[in-house]
């Protein structure tokens, strides 16, 4: 019972001004791959649909679903579409002038189509953190701009007599808009 009360108190304190929101953002996703001492970068727009709950001046939790088309040749001659799901925890502050800077940290997972002999798709997991600034346009909308870093660990790729482990680093500047209700 005590634990339940404590959790309830924590919940109320974290989300005292909590509201739900949905939003859209577009990111310029630049990803740096390092494999066997060689590097290659891939840059493509990433589109994100997100839904969250929380206080813009406090804590909020957000789930986002992203899409991007790599159209690169890191894993195969024809790397394809990728779908990603991320969960991020944000902490925001009210600094006046309708501006709300924030920091966020989260985890995610996803899958990308590839055209390899042994794999048609590759899965990955990720850890991300970043920060940004929200500008409250009115009671319903806010404008969102930020920068996110993501460390992505890819599925081990089999080469029969060898294996390759791939990690990549993403830096994503983004802009978006959120609708609160």
């Amino acid at each position, binding site marked *: 019972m005590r634990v339940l009360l404590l959790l309830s108190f924590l919940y109320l304190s974290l989300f005292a001004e909590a509201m739900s929101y949905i939003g859209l953002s*577009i*990111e*310029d*996703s630049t990803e740096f*791959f390092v*494999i066997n001492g*060689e590097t*290659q*970068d*891939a*840059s*493509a*727009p990433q589109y994100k649909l997100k839904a969250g709950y929380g206080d813009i001046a406090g804590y909020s939790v957000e789930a986002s679903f992203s899409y991007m088309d790599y*159209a*690169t*040749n*890191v*894993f*195969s*001659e024809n790397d394809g579409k990728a779908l990603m799901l991320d969960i991020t925890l944000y902490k925001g502050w009210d600094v006046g002038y309708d501006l709300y800077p924030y920091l966020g940290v989260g985890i995610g997972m996803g899958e990308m189509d590839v055209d*390899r*002999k*042994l794999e048609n798709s590759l899965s990955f997991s990720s850890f991300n953190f970043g920060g940004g600034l929200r500008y409250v*346009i009115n009671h319903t909308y806010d*404008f969102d*701009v930020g920068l996110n870093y993501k460390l992505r660990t890819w599925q081990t*790729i089999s*080469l*029969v*007599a*060898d294996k*390759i482990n*791939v990690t990549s680093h993403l830096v994503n*500047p*983004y*802009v978006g*808009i959120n609708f609160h209700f």
Partner: protein
Amino acid sequence: MKTLHNILLSSSLFAVMLGCQSSDNKPPLVPEIETIQIIDYNATTSLYALTDTSGSADGVSSTTSLLATIIYSDGRSATTANELDWESNNSKVIAVSNGLCTALANHGSVDINASYRKTLYTKSDESKKLTIIPLVDVNISEKNGMLSINYDSNSTGRVDINDSGPYELSANGHFENNVSLTDISSNIIWTSSNTTVATVSSSGTLNVALDKNATVIIKTSIFNEVNTTLELNITAP
């Protein structure tokens, strides 16, 4: 103020979209598997129709070990045997496991192939072809000169025995490729028609019970094909 907001939002989104989508003509950073090729460092084309030949003379073997080279798109290659699924198109003649090919018949030839996850295969024209060299004749003698074996025109040996032994039988094999091996007694199968009277170990050691007069037939065979017959005429003391 509202108009300013809209302009700011639109221009930001447009700027991001313009700066996207790079392309690169370099080959994929992660190499792709090009082919699987079977390699045989011993250049073996045939296996002798014998059982376990470990310790036999060079070039006389009923087994051979194959490897496979995986060739990658970046020019590198790697060698393996255990990672692959090996297949013989007639596993009753020559079986293969983890690249180790073993003769299981006195005649025949097979094609050996390797594959990975039922997705990557060796090319059909790059199969490893192996042929059995049949054992066509076996001549039995006694290593220590304790027995005098006589052969008739049908190559059936006969010998008189009045001592319990043991006798060290030696089997000299003659193969279809005109190779003769002086002692293959441990590489063939010995059988006795009456094991209560005469027994032969897997290495050819003959022991005889002299309880009564008896005739016992000793046969050598390889993979169920009889090579030769030795008739023991046992005389009790």
